[in-house]
């Protein structure tokens, strides 16, 4: 392994069963399910995670799946973590190896002292196993073939049988799984009973053949509390409902499709007119991304709150329209669920690599508002806020999710809503105001904040109508190609961007436990692993002040944070250090002060990766203080710059 494990990092060293040399851990281990896509495993794996949550023990669960419907390998990783960390730790303690295609790789991934659960119906040669890993074979195929005659049932119930066996091996409360069955199959007694039967087939086999539980156990706690388990696409879609969105136009693209589908789901629940059964929303699956964004712009121009959801390649297709929306000042909300690009890239893998392409999307002098949620809860908040900001600023607003936030269930604080909050429709001039003689110039900066007033089409019979174009216009929306009018308009748009800076979500600053002159900056889904890594680094006496960025344009607190520290790590999930690029470009920061920590293999960044990278770089700078000594920079600045 390329990195050195720290003392607490290596579970095999921490606590050992001396006879078996096996890992012994309670409520702190990683189970990974290796499955074949389309085999029905997702439902059983989800039940596994939820049953543990019902026992009051937090989990961090992630699907690692291919761009495929049936046949290719897929994994589900469940980190049981009483401490509540939401990121990936790295490493696997128990592998549920259900896919022969990936057997060798899966077995190799198990931590020394870990466990291998497999289908033992067909004998495998000893070379397929590891001496330092405990093998737990259950003849799943044989059990299912004996019990079920239907071929599809044999396959589907195999998943429930292994769930039952795992419940015995890990000391899960089987009644929690049965309760989940009951909720899932309410009114479908036959299905409920057959699932219960399969569960106990596996459970009874494990109890009869193994010394249950093994070293990894789940013990009931009260560590989940009121928290909810939700993915970011679902939460963002709910945010759009609360944000007053009525029009959604979208084109299917992984990993954003479920956002639009969730919006439909929530709207059917929450947005149907009681008296008529008619819909207070309109959702159109467009013919492509160009059309999606065009519809959003048309609807928003006409006074409805509208959005689209897409991913990187979709954003590329929307470029021309995004420029128009910027210059024509149309409130436009776009959810970008980032993935590995391009179209034939890694659509089912996560990245934060659209930052630059969204911040400066389109032709000409354009720049856009980005919101950077860290988890599904913030997806909900920013999902609603985006519509207020778009209306207030009359400009495109991007909500930047990624696959890790968007498509994975995260444990989050419950969603809240203040009933006294009102939708902020921004500066819209009404017929009454026009009648009262208010001067209407569509591009007139009345208030000095760069934001003009607009009218909705159809407002007034004689006043307030205007013709919408790109930039060939004067303050009263009259056609002109004159240079001074163009410059005047562009300068106002610049003022408006400064207004945006003052109203977008502020960065979150957290001081280290000890005074330090080093800091770390990150955004989005990186926060999950970051929180845990900072705790680990602290144990290694590396103390960092923290700044989580939540929006672009950048708040003044961000360059101030950099100025106040000698070294600042910038942790992000792309190759080109896009956040660092933006920081240097927008805030005039000396690049030598920023040290990038970059993770971009398509998997979510892990605690171990961040800890190792920052730990090593801190040592490279010769800045790791001895225990108890204040964090100090002793190397020269240029050395720091070289490493960046």
């Amino acid at each position: 392994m390329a990195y050195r494990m720290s003392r607490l990092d290596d579970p095999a060293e921490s606590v050992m069963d001396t006879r078996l040399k096996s890992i012994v851990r309670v409520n702190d281990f990683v189970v990974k399910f290796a499955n074949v896509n389309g085999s029905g495993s997702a439902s059983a794996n989800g039940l596994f995670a939820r049953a543990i949550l019902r026992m009051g023990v937090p989990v961090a669960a992630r699907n690692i799946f291919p761009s495929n419907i049936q046949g290719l390998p897929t994994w589900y990783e469940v980190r049981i973590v009483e401490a509540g960390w939401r990121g990936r730790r790295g490493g696997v303690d128990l592998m549920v190896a259900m896919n022969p295609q990936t057997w060798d790789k899966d077995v190799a991934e198990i931590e020394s002292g870990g466990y291998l659960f497999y289908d033992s119906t067909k004998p495998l040669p000893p070379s397929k196993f590891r001496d330092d890993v405990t093998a737990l074979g259950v003849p799943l195929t044989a059990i299912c073939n004996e019990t079920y005659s239907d071929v599809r049932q044999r396959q589907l119930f195999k998943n429930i049988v292994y769930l039952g066996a795992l419940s015995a091996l890990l000391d899960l409360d089987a009644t929690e799984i049965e309760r989940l069955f009951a909720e899932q199959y309410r009114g479908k007694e036959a299905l409920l009973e057959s699932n219960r039967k399969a569960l106990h087939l596996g459970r009874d086999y494990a109890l009869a053949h193994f010394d249950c539980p093994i070293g990894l156990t789940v013990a009931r706690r009260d560590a989940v509390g009121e928290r909810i388990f939700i993915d970011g696409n679902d939460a963002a879609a709910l945010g759009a409902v609360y944000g007053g969105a009525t029009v959604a136009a979208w084109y299917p693209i992984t990993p954003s499709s479920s956002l639009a589908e969730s919006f439909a789901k929530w709207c059917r629940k929450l947005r149907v007119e009681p008296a008529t059964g008619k819909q207070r929303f309109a959702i159109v699956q467009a013919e492509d991304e160009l059309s999606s964004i065009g519809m959003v712009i048309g609807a928003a121009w006409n006074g409805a709150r509208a959005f689209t959801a897409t991913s990187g390649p979709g954003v590329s297709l929307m470029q021309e329209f995004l420029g128009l929306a910027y210059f024509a000042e149309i409130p436009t909300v776009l959810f970008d669920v980032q993935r590995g690009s391009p179209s034939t890239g890694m659509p089912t893998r996560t990245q934060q690599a659209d930052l630059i392409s969204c911040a400066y999307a389109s032709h000409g002098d354009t720049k856009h508002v980005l919101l950077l949620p860290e988890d599904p809860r913030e997806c909900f908040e920013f999902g609603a806020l985006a519509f207020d900001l778009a209306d207030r600023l009359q400009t495109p607003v991007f909500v930047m999710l990624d696959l890790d936030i968007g498509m994975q269930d995260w444990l989050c604080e419950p969603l809240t809503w203040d009933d006294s909050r009102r939708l902020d429709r921004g500066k819209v001039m009404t017929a009454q105001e026009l009648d009262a003689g208010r001067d209407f110039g569509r591009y007139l900066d009345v208030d000095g904040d760069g934001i003009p007033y607009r009218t909705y089409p159809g407002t007034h019979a004689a006043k307030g109508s205007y013709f919408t174009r790109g930039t060939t216009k004067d303050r009263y929306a009259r056609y002109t190609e004159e240079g001074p009018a163009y410059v005047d308009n562009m300068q106002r748009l610049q003022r408006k961007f400064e207004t945006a800076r003052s109203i977008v979500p502020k960065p979150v600053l957290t001081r280290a436990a000890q005074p330090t002159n080093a800091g770390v900056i990150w955004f989005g889904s990186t926060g999950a692993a970051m929180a845990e890594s900072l705790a680990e680094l602290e144990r290694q006496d590396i103390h960092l002040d923290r700044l989580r960025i939540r929006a672009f344009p950048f708040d003044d607190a961000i360059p101030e944070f950099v100025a106040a520290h000698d070294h600042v790590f910038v942790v992000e999930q792309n190759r080109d250090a896009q956040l660092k690029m933006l920081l240097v470009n927008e805030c005039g920061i000396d690049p030598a002060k920023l040290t990038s920590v970059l993770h971009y293999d398509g998997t979510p960044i892990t605690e171990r990766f961040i800890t190792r990278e920052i730990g090593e770089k801190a040592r490279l700078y010769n800045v790791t203080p001895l225990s108890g000594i204040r964090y100090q920079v002793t190397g020269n600045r240029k050395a720091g710059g070289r490493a960046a």
Partner: protein
Amino acid sequence: MTYLAKPKLHHPALPKNAVGYTRRDYEGAISTLCAGCGHDSISAAIIQAFYELDIEPHRVAKLSGIGCSSKTPTYFLGNSHGFNSVHGRMPSVLTGAALANRDLIYLGVSGDGDSASIGLGQFAHVLRRGVNMVYIVENNGVYGLTKGQFSATADKGSKSKRGAINSDEPIDLVLLALALGATFVARGFSGDKAQLVPLIRAAVAHRGAAFIDVVSPCVAFNNHPGSTKSYDYVREHNEAVNRLDFMPERAPITTDYAEGSVRDVVLHDGGTVRLRKLHADYDPSDKVGAMAYLESRRAQGEVVTGLLYVDTQSDDMHASLRTVDAPLNSLGDAELVPGHAALAAVNASLR
């Protein structure tokens, strides 16, 4: 300043329509197109049609793409909101606008480059969605603003001003519109205002996607011998299958016409299109027959005009989406935001 406002000097005795507007109230800025451009005749027909329909100008939203034709919304309905959008993408912007407020009248103006080339995809999908609109293509077979390149509707074998021969098959937008499910399909000629004005009026009254292809000669780049979109060619080959009168309300059939030569088509709002048949066999309610007829005449080099197809039972996008009767852009917080209590229930379902 390149914006030319028309002087607001009205003759005091100008007649007013039923909603109190004069014809001048439906005009826009002075056209900056070439003198004699067919598009200006279409703008005049639009002005006349909306004046005659007694529609208040601000109840209309006019949208366009890019090109000479897409500049024209500046030249009519000066008191309507307008949107000069992106090349080939007017249909999506119009669709979104129509989703937001179902109460306005949507007029999309496009050209043959805008709709048949760069925007062919959006042209297709806006028609098959049944967006309630009038979609006019001002079809001159040529790119005017970029000075004379062939467009996708130029006939095979037709000659450009510089003498090049077009070797590609033309796209017939009328045939496409029929195949794609437009429920009102017509073709007019910018040189025949008497036919065009009632076509536009009937299209406005129609509920659903109404498409009018208007052959509109480009005097600068496509009005020479060898062109099949010139004034001379279209006048010689214009085969009108019917003439129209549009009546806002059902009126008794007069006896001015020979038996069987008049057909009344009642539209959604009760308005009636009275068709004077010029071809005894042509039936505008028979889509398959219309397509066969159009294709056979096209092969002969004829330009068939008139109301070519209408489905009087059509519905629009809002009906299929089951949206509420009130415009979506008029819904307030109470109707849109479910509130804290609903969110508590959502939270409970996620544990």
